[in-house]
């Protein structure tokens, strides 16, 4: 349920940036140009590994003005649930994949007087599409990227085209050596904060900012969904009249899709709220960033893309 017809894209180049990082460059499979993507936008790839169908969202790292190719950077994670591992191991140049039109849930605030970007690891990807846009606007910004020692040179190279005369820093000394509170405390009025990375980093950044008095409306985060695995459970889809088993490493949404039910979804990372589904019975283990704490406590809705059941059974109005 993503807006518009999907795009068919051909893999034109795969570049290994680091042992676990690959850049995939896509071109339109049938010629022509891609739609202009929003800065900070992401695309959803449909990956078919035999009978298994996976849908993964990746941020575009190419500038919004680039319409002849779309690039993404994919990290191969040890505990990959299939998508990233499939891209790293099985996809080769020339392959044609299905891609949903780019959308953005992480956009630059037009009224900001300054933009503060904080990335952690692969969370650099949406920030890479912000940089050319900020440069084009002549906007004031500052970027801090946290990286492991071995990946710091990779990120430095990716940031190099934008680094001249700008406050762009790669921190490889670990989270403890990064003076987050000092950074957030010295920002001028009118600064907007954007953070993308592991949940622990996003929680630390948003929590520290809130503690220093930053208003919610100036804190923006892009979630990659984090860990969706957990104990297996059974989901009863009342309207569809079927029951599905949700495996340990499978998301509830994936299990519903595997059963042939067209469930709503957009970001697949617990951020957009599109997949909100009413819960009739059972308790949800909420892992999304969309519902408020009160909404989570009321237990009336579940985000099927990242959340699971706290117990053996969940009855959904789907």
């Amino acid at each position, binding site marked *: 349920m993503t807006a518009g017809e999907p795009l068919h894209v051909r893999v034109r180049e795969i570049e290994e940036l680091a042992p676990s990082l690959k850049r995939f460059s896509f071109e339109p499979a049938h010629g022509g140009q891609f739609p202009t993507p929003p800065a900070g936008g992401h695309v959803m790839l449909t990956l078919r590994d035999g009978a298994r169908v996976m849908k993964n969202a990746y941020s575009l790292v190419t500038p919004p003005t680039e319409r002849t190719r779309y690039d993404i950077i994919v990290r191969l994670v040890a505990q990959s649930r299939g998508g990233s591992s499939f891209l790293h191991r099985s996809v080769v140049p020339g392959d044609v994949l299905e891609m949903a039109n780019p959308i953005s849930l992480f956009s630059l605030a037009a*009224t*900001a*007087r*300054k933009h503060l970007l904080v990335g952690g690891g692969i969370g650099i990807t949406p920030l890479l599409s912000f940089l050319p846009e900020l440069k084009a606007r002549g906007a004031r910004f500052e970027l801090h990227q946290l990286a492991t020692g071995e990946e710091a040179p990779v990120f430095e190279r990716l940031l190099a085209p934008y680094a001249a005369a700008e406050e762009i820093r790669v921190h490889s000394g670990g989270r403890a050596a990064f003076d987050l509170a000092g950074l*957030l*405390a*010295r*920002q*001028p*009025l*009118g*600064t907007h904060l954007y953070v993308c990375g592991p949940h622990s980093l996003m929680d630390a950044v948003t929590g520290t*900012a*809130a503690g*220093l*008095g*930053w*208003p*919610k*409306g*100036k804190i923006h985060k892009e979630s990659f969904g984090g860990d969706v695995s957990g104990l297996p459970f059974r989901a009863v889809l009342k309207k569809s009249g079927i029951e599905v088993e949700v495996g340990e490493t499978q998301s509830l949404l994936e299990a519903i899709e595997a059963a042939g039910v067209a469930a709503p979804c957009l970001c697949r990372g617990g951020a957009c709220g599109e997949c909100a589904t009413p819960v009739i019975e059972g308790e949800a283990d909420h892992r999304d960033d969309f519902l408020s704490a009160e909404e989570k406590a009321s237990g009336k809705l579940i985000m099927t893309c990242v959340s699971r059941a706290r117990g053996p059974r969940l009855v959904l109005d789907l």
Partner: protein
Amino acid sequence: MSDQGIKSRPSYQPIAPDPAGRHHLMVVDGAEVPPEALAEGVTPSAFEVWTVARRSAVPGVPMMEEAAGAVRTFRSTPHLFSALEERLARETMGLRFYAVGPEPFLWDAYGIGERAGLSRQEMGFAHVGPKARRIFCVHCREVMEKVTTSIVTCTGCGAALFVRDHFSRRLAAFMGVQIDAEVPGEVPAAEELYR
């Protein structure tokens, strides 16, 4: 006539410091914080307060204290606003800004806050004092202060203007629209509504 049902007319609430804020700066168009400007149980000591004395004899400020409970007095509102611009230009995130006074003062303060990067979420306003309005003539762009009547003659173009509840935050003024545009000369009697 006093409530025209126009949504842009601002509404106000007594002020309480936003618990999420790091520092709270309040500007008052008067010599003191009027008690009715504050929510129940809130005292001025929760804020750094800037007041307007409207006299030349104000205490000097050799060391400016920027802390809750500190009070700084200015000779006039332009005096306060000019210091406010300088202050906000060097402020950092976490500040909350509040204004207390008549509407033109509140929205002039809002404009300074907004230009400094503050969002509506970081500002609070309490309307105390006269209800007189600043009116913007939509025909000739003249701005008139202290209008208290439902109809006013524009000091710029002479048109008889109906004082609408339609409020512009950008101009910090209510809109005045010619009332006899359809039938020239048909001007109802003005009522005193905004005192």
